[in-house]
Each structure stands twice: as C-alpha cells, then as structure tokens.
C-alpha cells in the first residue's frame, strides 16, 4: 500500500476496500452506543454515500444496537444489547462518558427496574468488544460535552476504558472516516494508527499544509472578515494545529467545507476542542 496519505484517495478507501469486504460472507455484529453528546455522529453516518447506510447495514456489519435507528424499544431494545455481548462484535461509541453522580447524568436504558448508565453500558461492552472505536470528538477527547466547567464530569472513552481504542474524532465525524475505518478492520485488520490512536489514512494531513488557500498564506494575503476568499489565519483558523483530510475529502458529497465556505477551521477534530480552540472567530 502506498504510504503517502494523499495518494490514498477517498475512492480507494470508500469503494475498493468495501468491495474487498464483500468477499467476507460472515458479517460481524456492531453496537453503536450513543453516550453524552449530541448524537450527531450517527446522523453523519446516515449521510454516507458509496457506500451508503443501506449498503453499510446490509453488506458490511450487523448493527445490533443503536438508540437512533433500532426498531425495538425499552427493555427489548436493551436485551439486544446484552445478547450481543456474548458474540464477537465491534463497539462504536459516540459521545463522552459522563461520570457525575455515578453516571446518572446519562442514563441509556432501564432494565429489570434498574437504570443503566452510559458508564455502565460502556464498561459492559468495552470489556468484551473485539475492537472499540471512539467516534466524534466527545468520545475521542471529551469534546464539547467536557467543555469547562464540565458540569457532567465527562471524559473520553480512552480515559474511561483502559484498553486499546481507535479514535476517530471530528465534530461530527466524517462518514467516510468511520466507514473506512470499519472497512479496514473487516478486511485488513487494525489500521495504522498515529500517536493519538487515529487511523493514519484519515488524520495524517495537516489542514493548513493541504489547504487550497495555502498560497495566500505564503504570500501574506489574509482575509479581514468572514466571507472573503483568502487565508483566514488571522481570523483564528485552527487549520495549522488540526489534522484531518478535510481539505481533500470535503463534506457531504460537495466540494465545500468550512474553509471553502469562507469561515475558519475551528479545530473540531482536535484534542482540546472547544476550550483550547477558542475564540473560533478572532475579530
């Protein structure tokens, strides 16, 4: 495999890898657990295209538990969660682990008359999952759920579960990052990870280095306000400290992305977001 991350285009990851995964007839179970957050990462997953959500659910994995999508409700839903624990499964967690008041700031179910906190569900599934993916910035680093003064005492998944975790940050996560990472797990095993346990294929590019407005920076042509087509370094752009492939991948099957929309990158995929990334707009 070519080690140059830019050469590994989205076509390669999103289509070729999936074609390979098709050859596996056995589909692994997957639990997508929403914890303390906005549940925006499952919404982002639904925006996936080539493969889309129907392909993902039909051909790649068997989604046994997810609060936003599953048909079952109440105890019957949670029973599906418990039954999956005895199988081989991938655990995807979005949202931070909220630890205040023994976890009661985030209750995900009631079973046999007892509350099941997000903490408890994360622990139960986290101890038994074959792989764990912390998707979105809240799961990967605490994110906005852990923003100061962190009223819910939220922590990242890796701070809570002491084991190997693949971080797939972003606020929200890009659907290609999550599906590509899962495709890698299915076909080639654990992808190459960087020091922050992020898949290198998606997070090795510095936004500032690959930014189409980089030449404006080099020539010192800076935007003085939002809405201008120049470098937004002086408006507080966090591209120089944030690594994702947004500059080449773009968003929602368009050529657009925050910088393309004439606004600064706010470092939403970076550790320390939002507290260390503010002010988002520097006037």
């Amino acid at each position: 495999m070519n080690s140059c991350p830019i050469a590994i285009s989205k076509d390669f990851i999103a289509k070729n890898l999936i074609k390979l995964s098709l050859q596996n007839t056995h589909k692994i179970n997957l639990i997508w657990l929403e914890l303390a957050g906005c549940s925006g990462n499952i919404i982002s997953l639904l925006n996936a295209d080539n493969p889309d959500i129907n392909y993902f659910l039909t051909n790649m994995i068997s989604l046994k538990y997810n609060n936003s999508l599953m048909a079952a409700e109440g105890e019957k839903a949670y029973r599906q969660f418990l039954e999956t624990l005895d199988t081989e499964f991938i655990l995807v967690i979005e949202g931070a682990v909220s630890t205040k008041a023994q976890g009661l700031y985030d209750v995900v179910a009631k079973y046999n008359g007892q509350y099941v906190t997000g903490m408890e569900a994360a622990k139960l599934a986290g101890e038994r999952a074959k792989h764990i993916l912390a998707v979105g910035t809240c799961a990967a680093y605490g994110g906005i759920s852990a923003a100061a003064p962190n009223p819910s005492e939220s922590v990242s998944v890796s701070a809570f579960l002491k084991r190997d975790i693949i971080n797939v940050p972003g606020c929200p996560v890009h659907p290609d990052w999550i599906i590509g990472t899962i495709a890698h797990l299915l076909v080639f095993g654990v992808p190459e990870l960087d020091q922050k346990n992020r898949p290198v294929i998606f997070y090795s590019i510095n936004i500032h280095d690959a930014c189409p407005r980089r030449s404006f920076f080099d020539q010192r042509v800076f935007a003085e306000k939002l809405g201008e087509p120049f470098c937004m370094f002086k408006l507080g752009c966090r591209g120089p400290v944030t690594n994702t492939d947004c500059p080449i991948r773009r968003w929602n099957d368009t050529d657009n992305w925050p910088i393309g929309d004439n606004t600064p990158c706010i470092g939403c995929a970076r550790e320390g977001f939002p507290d260390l990334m503010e002010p988002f707009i520097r006037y």
Partner: protein
Amino acid sequence: MAKITVNPITRISGFLEIEVTVENNRIIDAKSSGMLFRGFEKMLKGRPPLDAVYFTERICGICSTAHSLAATLALEYALDIEPNENARMIRDFVHGCEFLQNHIRHFYQYTLPDYIKGPNIHPLINNYSVDLRLPPDRNDKLVQHYLESTKYSRLAHEMLAELAGKAPHNHGIFIGGVTVKMDADKWIKVRSILDSILSFVKDVMLEDVYTIARYYPDYFLNGSGYGNLLSYGLYNTYKDREAFYVNPGIFKNGTISSFDENMITENIKYAWYEADQIENKPTDEVEIEADRYKEKAYSWVKAPRYNDVPFEVGPLARMWISGIYNNGISTMDRTIARVLEVIKIAEIMQELLKRVELKPSGQRKYSVPDQAEGKGLIDTTRGGLGHWIDIKNQKINHYEIITPTSWNLSPRDTKLQRGPVEEALFCAEIKDIENPVEIGRIVRSFDPCVSCATH
C-alpha cells in the same frame, strides 16, 4: 393497575424514559423524563459571544442548524446588526434544508418502524412487533421507500453543505447573514436537488403517510393532549405571499391570538435543578444548579410555560396556526402535518431561490459591545426555539436556551400541570400491556429531541 416503563424510547434523538400507569387498559398517569444532561448554559458563561453560533449548534446533532440560527439572531439583536435581504434569503434556505432532512428521516427512519414490519436488516428486525396492519404488498412498498428515503435526506444535507460548509454543525450561518458567495454553480446544484426532493415527497412520501393513516385510523383519536398550540413564526419576514408561512401565534380554547414572548417562563419544580426561584423568565439571571438527587424531581427537562400554561409546538402547531391544516390534533394528525410541511417548506425554498441574487455575502467585521442583551426566537423543525444572551465585559454573562422539545416533553410544574406529551398519553388506551406499542407511537409523533431539551 400496572406500571409500564419504556426506556429507552428509541428512534428519537437523545435519551428518554416514559413511565405510565395503566388501569383497565387506560393510561391514568404518565411521566416523561429526559435522561441526559451536559450543562451548555453553564459552559457558555465567560466565552466569547461570537462563538455562541458554532458552540450552541453542538447541543444537537439532528437540528444543529436551528441552534446556529437562533444564536445568530440573538447576537444580531445584541449587536444591532441587520443582515441584507439576499443573505437572509440564503440563510432561510439553509434552514429549510434542515427541515427537509429532519422530516424525511423522522417519517421514514423514526416513525415507520412503529407501523410496518421492517426490512430484514439489523437493527430493524423487531421480533416483538405487534399490531402491524399493512397487507404484505403495501408493507413491502413502504419498506422499499424506507430504504430509498435515505438518499433524499442525505441530499437535503448535501444542499445544506453546498451553501453552509458541512452538516451537521454548519459554518455558513453567521451574524450578518451567511458567509457563502452564491454563484450559478451552487444555485443550479441546490435547485436541482430541491426539485428531486420535492418530487419524492409529493410522489412517494405523501401517499405513504396516507397509507399509514388509512390502516391506523384509531390514531386520529389518541394523543390529542391539551390542544394548546404555539409558534414563534417561520418564514414570516417576506412580503411575498409565495414565500410566507406562519406568523407567531398561539391557539387555545379554539381561538388563535397573538404571541407575546414576555409570557414565557420555565418552571423547575419537578426537574433535577435547584435555584432561588422555581419559576424564571429566560432573561432572569438566576443561578440554576443541577441536583440529580432532588426529591420528587424526575427529569432533566425544565417546564416552559406560556402564561402559566403548557403548549405544544411543532409542525402541527405551525400548520394549524397558519390555517393550512386543521383536520385535528392527534398522533396521526401530527405525523401528517409533518409530511405536508415538507412540501410547504420546499415550495418556499423554491421561491427564495428565484429571488436570490449572485452577490457577495455582505459580511462585515463585527465588534462586541461591552454590554448588550439579545434574543433569538424562531420556529425550527420541532417547534419554537429561543436563545437569550446577556453580554458583559465583552463576554457571555448569561445564556438561556429553551428548545421545542422542552415545551413538548416538559415535566409537571408547580401547579401539577402535566407536560404536553404526558397529557397526550393520559387516557390513551393500551390494548396489550405486554406490548404497549401505543406509547412509542404517541410520543414519536412529537419528534422528541432530548439532546436539545436538556442541553
């Protein structure tokens, strides 16, 4: 007498518990409890005011555009900024994209599994389903549409991103309007997507909702609740009739009257919070502290009231107050109104596009005053959303958020009045207490977003 607890209510955004007491197959008591709390109002204290736009949209992954707009309106009020008409039309178009995305997903992905036997795909396989009434051929057709619909909700977000950078959590809605420069390339792209979504809704979705209505006529008779409806207004700033939807208003005791935002309060008697005052106006600078162990409290959702009375908000409230849909107030009417609203909003979006000019965004460099107050009230996918901001020393001193689902999912208040969803459940018939499917169907007709409601 039996107690039934459904937790989680799945196929909503966030975590919700519904507890009902049933006697002789009738619900005689109902409680709705929001189960997630993060504390956004506390987090916002001391932050740079302009950051509220991108910060507050992260309250919610499903309706983030709504929050970016309410925050922007509050800041525009505080900074005394008026966006130009062109930028406002683009912004209103972007907001419309969220309605299309939310409503299509809500009908197909969140509502339909209550009424049809889903496709043989996890997590849609539900071995416990009961009371599924569609004949196999009709059921199969709706299953097919369930799968097809994901394309159109995705396309709605594609339009949103084309103009506002990305979705969820857009960048393009900002103080002064938008940041995008509309050009012919973007214009024709969103125009063509919008046309394809509207075709799908008119040709497929509309028939689908009436198919459900035909097989479940009893759902026109339950889930009515108080019948008090409220809207902050939506698409009401344009003079042209074609681009107009609904003015702010309330419907109570059979009459529509004008809306006065000063009548809004929030009551915390049965919510997990402590404060010096149990009832507060959004502009009151009261320190509200979370207390998960507070006695008798049962939800993270506070209880908004209008003139001390609970009100339902959402698509049915808007369609009713605007006079477009007055068939009834019930579980099924809510669901039908939501689908009809997709058409109304898509047609307004077409009108906005006709009027949009290819001009620069008109952004300016804004300076934050030492002191200022602002408010942003607007109807969003699930109903009226309000943001109130108080700026001191160029920082956020106080921020208050009341979301649509706070109105709908509110717990009881000091007067022991039930919240609108609780009231909608009250008296409903539960045919089989082992499989109380009615609860989820009634609750989902409100399209709850608990991430928002508790924030």
